[in-house]
């Protein structure tokens, strides 16, 4: 697969910051991959997202080493407006990213900036409102809708620009579980249509079923980069870094530690149930044989 994003030996330190925010990051993300990024607060996750979108170094002052390339070209080399056609970024606070007076204005704003024609805008608007189920809200002011709806509007506004890679920086951190699920439902649709998506998220229950690959950042270092199943086999490291994996996964990890389970940790509740049933059945068989 083609590498859409290539980060090589990338270090970033904000001006006047006592230490680097990202340190010697090497990362390669192929087209069509769904990547999850996790890590404790201050790990450098948002800095990495901003670096991929060109907000760093464009909007922030600091010291940069190494390279961040999108489609083989350094982010700084893109004229403003062109990089945003390749990389779309959704911020964690939906309230702060609205720039217009109605949901519809918000959705078309980015497309107008890219110089799209009215028919193109109309077509994409129809597609994105259907995808994110926002049609009934089109003429409402963004400040009148709920938090979950706001985040879907923010997501739709970026999606409408059809970027090649979509980055979401803790998109559900301010949402209730129902709204969170609706945002992830949209992301599931994007995964089905083979979009390249990078999600920074603490809510692992929703992220794990979608992620092809997971990254662990801690204190500016990329500590772990692996395919999702392999990633969660490093449970001790994850727990040490303050990551809180889903309960079912932790249950099997505890079982493994006490020697009552050997094998890969399950990624979902369904998988856990299946493994548990197999485990119980094998125990019964073993007990039956012994008896």
């Amino acid at each position, binding site marked *: 697969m083609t590498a859409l994003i290539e980060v090589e030996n990338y270090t970033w330190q904000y001006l006047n910051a006592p230490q680097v925010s990202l340190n010697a990051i090497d990362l390669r993300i192929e087209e069509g991959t769904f990547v999850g990024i996790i890590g404790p607060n201050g790990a450098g996750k948002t800095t990495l997202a901003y670096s991929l979108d060109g907000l760093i170094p464009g909007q922030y002052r600091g010291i940069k080493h190494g390279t961040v390339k999108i489609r083989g070209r350094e982010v700084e080399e893109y004229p403003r*407006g062109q990089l945003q056609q390749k990389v779309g970024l959704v911020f964690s606070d939906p309230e702060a990213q609205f720039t217009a007076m109605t949901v519809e204005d918000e959705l078309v704003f980015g497309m107008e900036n890219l110089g799209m024609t009215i028919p193109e805008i109309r077509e994409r608007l129809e597609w994105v409102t259907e995808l994110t189920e926002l049609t009934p809200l089109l003429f409402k002011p963004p400040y009148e809708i709920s938090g979950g709806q706001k985040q879907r509007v923010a997501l739709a506004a970026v999606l409408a620009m059809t970027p090649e890679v979509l980055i979401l920086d803790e998109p559900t951190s301010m949402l209730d579980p129902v709204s969170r699920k609706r945002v992830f439902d949209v992301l599931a649709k994007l995964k089905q249509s083979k979009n390249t998506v990078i999600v920074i998220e603490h809510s692992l229950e929703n992220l794990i079923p979608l992620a092809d690959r997971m990254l662990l950042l801690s204190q500016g270092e990329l500590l772990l980069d692996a395919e999702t199943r392999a990633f969660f086999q490093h449970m001790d490291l994850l727990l040490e870094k303050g990551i809180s994996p889903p309960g079912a996964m932790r249950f099997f990890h505890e079982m493994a530690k006490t020697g009552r389970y050997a094998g890969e940790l399950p990624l979902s509740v369904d998988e856990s149930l299946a493994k548990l049933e197999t485990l119980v059945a094998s125990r019964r068989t073993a007990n039956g044989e012994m008896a």
Partner: protein
Amino acid sequence: MNKTLLGYVPAESPIYSIHPFVKLYFLLVVSLFPMFISSPEINLLITVVVLALMVYSKVDLRILRIYIPVAISMGWVILLSYTVLGGEHPEYELLYRVLGVNFYWERIRDAVVVYCRILPMIATMVFFLTTSRERDVIVAMRTMRTPFVVTYVFAMALRASGMVLEDFQIVRQAEQARGFDTAGKSIAYKIRKYIMYMIPLFALSLRRTEEFTNALVARGYAFTGEAARVKRADYILTHYHFRFSDGVLVAIISGLFLVLLVMRYAQGKFSVEASWVLNWLYQVFS
């Protein structure tokens, strides 16, 4: 009613079928009418007409209650400025002298004229705010070919003012939760302690500015440079069509303005001398 950043607008109104440009044109032109009219009765008549338009537009007139204290305060300020603080004018006709203060007829007359000029202006502005959603204002400005950057800055200012108000509530509630509350305290205390709200509000606003800028950049917007030179389609305007009836309304407003100018300057109408209200007031005072 629906809430907007500008106030409250009716959920349904016949005025929504009118192009936003016509409403803005009405505001801009009709607000000028009182400048050319000295007769208080004509200005009061304009006020009544604008209020009637509000009724026709299904505006809840209870909304006017918030403007009444402003109108009364303004009236007193104008009256005091022209009379008590109006100074010595030997050339004017002295009506009374109370506690060393001279009350001249011309100064009282001017205060009434100025106040009656302001009332229709306020009514016109209220009419506009209670019948226009934020988007209408932007559409009207863009229809007038106002540069995008200007309309956008205006929209951002509206948006930002709403956010500052929301942030102010957050700061106030957070401080109340920690035992800081100015409710029931004296005005002097409130003013002194207002800084307790202003510092966090200022810090929040700075953060919002950064987030807002990032959001604009992430959407490919730029005020200057190559990106700013992209030929923009204006999608919002495709929802609005300037119909024949809108043209007729613009023509009527323009025509009325022209008639007003002719009557004022060619025929000498609407002057203080021609006002029966002022003549009646003169008889009352003298």
